[in-house]
């Protein structure tokens, strides 16, 4: 599915957190959103996913305007999301987390007629766990997982919704180099296997330039540049914004 934003704008007080941003993420693409701290990256995701309301502009999925839709409706339209600080259900085991998410996705959240899990939830949960390499931890209580596994679980919960578009907010935040590599591996694997339109926010430029097909650069709420890694690397505005940080060096 194709994700597009047109003239998207959000102000907090007098300050524009997102200012007239127009961007498109083609169906099946793997894109990164980068920018210095406070560039409005998370706000950008919050606007797309309906967690906060835009002041202006539109969000479109496959050409359909979903700007006015609520969070639940956007989820149903096929957009999943993982968070900067992993969000999951800490008192449940990994399996229960996933089965609950599957049940919710299948509209069985209000089912009072049978015991949990509803039929079919368990195999699907196992599938998702396997996809993210969480199969071995299935019976562990989520709160006791390592930081990296918790981030994976967060993504797994999003995948339970069978999304066509997946937003990942800093999937490698707070991880050591080994964990990072594992995470990126998983993300790429999921992307290629599920044919997702995947957008992620990332600070590690190595990762960004290694795996992203397209990169969008946000700075103080404005879109600075968007294009292929090669184009971004050579963009003078981007170089100016990142001056002295050397992260763009190949």
């Amino acid at each position, binding site marked *: 599915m194709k994700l597009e934003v047109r003239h998207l704008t959000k102000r907090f007080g007098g300050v524009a957190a997102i200012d007239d941003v127009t961007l498109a993420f083609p169906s099946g693409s793997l894109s990164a959103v980068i920018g210095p701290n406070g560039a409005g990256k998370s706000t950008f995701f919050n606007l797309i*996913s309906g*967690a906060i309301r835009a002041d202006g502009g539109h969000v479109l999925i496959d050409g359909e305007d979903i700007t006015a839709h609520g*969070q*639940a409706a956007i*989820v*149903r339209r096929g957009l999943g*999301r993982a*968070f900067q600080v992993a*969000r*999951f*259900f*800490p*008192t*449940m085991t990994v399996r*229960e987390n996933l*089965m*609950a*998410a599957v*049940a*919710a*996705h299948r509209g*069985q*959240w*209000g*089912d*009072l*007629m*049978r*015991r*949990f*899990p*509803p039929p079919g939830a368990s195999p699907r949960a196992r599938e998702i766990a396997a996809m993210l390499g969480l199969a071995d931890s299935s019976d562990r209580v989520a709160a006791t997982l390592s930081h990296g596994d918790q981030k994976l679980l*967060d993504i797994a*919960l*999003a995948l*339970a*919704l069978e999304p066509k578009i997946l937003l990942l907010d800093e999937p490698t935040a707070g991880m050591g180099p080994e964990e990072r590599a594992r995470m990126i591996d998983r993300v790429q694997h999921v992307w290629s296997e599920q044919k997702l339109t995947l957008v992620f926010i990332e600070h590690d430029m190595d990762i960004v330039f290694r795996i992203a097909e397209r990169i969008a650069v946000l700075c103080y709420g404005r879109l600075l540049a968007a294009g292929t890694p090669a184009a971004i690397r050579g963009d003078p505005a981007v170089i100016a914004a990142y001056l002295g940080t050397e992260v763009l060096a190949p």
Partner: protein
Amino acid sequence: MTPLAREGGIALIVLALLLGAPALFSSPAFEDFIIRLSALALFASSLNLLVGASGMISFGHGMFYGFGAYAFALLMQRTALSLLPAFLLTLGLTALAALLVGGVCIRLKTIYFAFVTLAIQMLFYSVIISWESLTGGDQGLRGGIPRRVIAGLDINHQRHLYQVCALLLVVGLFAMRHITASPFGMTLRMIRDNEARAAFLGIPLWRPKLAVFVLAAVFAALGGVLASLFVSGAYPELADWPISGQAIFAVMLGGIESFLGPLAGSAILLALNDIFTRITEYHGLVQGGVILLFALGLRRGVLDFLRRDRARGEAASR
């Protein structure tokens, strides 16, 4: 064996034991205890549907206990309805009231939800006190609940009341257990654990929240009906905020994370009260001291403590 079948089996055995007990040893005191326990335990367990299962802390849950008691006693005194219709109508009216109250309250989160439920209970209590023509004001609905024998069942007779209470206690607890173990119960747990995540899994939060609020109110009213049968009337004390406190304390004493915690807490609370009021006029002092020991010594409910202790033991031996 599926959990449903196993728990159903346990429920049936317990029910059989309770119903058979009077044949083995006839003790009116034991029967009274079970009658009072069933009222408090249903009420406390219903509160735990909110507090433990959904993470919604209510300070005003006693309002529905009182509502159940008053609605039932009024229906019995003022109308010619027989027992069962009056009982079902009471639960229906409570659900309606809870729908209204819940619709207003669930917009608020955490401590503000607790406060607004308490405030509404205070208002409800002051209406009971002021609306003397209907409720008898502070003197309550006196004169007893009229005897209406159906199918040989006379609930003013203690043995019959005991049997009804035992049945409703077991059935009520089983029903609540089923709710918490259903996919819906899991949804509540998701909301308790991480509301934002639950919302982003496409769950319209207000619906399960309102639903559990109404369900909890109905079970609280069930407890209230039993209380009104025990005192054969309804009194404002049954709707005042210390009654909400009773349920909170039963839940905290027994354990918030164990399904049977509120039942155990209710039994402990009633037993403590019964023993201490019998032996001393300064029962508050002794009871307060024991509760402090519990709270500071275990720092969680008794069942939660035992469970965690046990889990730790297993981990150590592994």
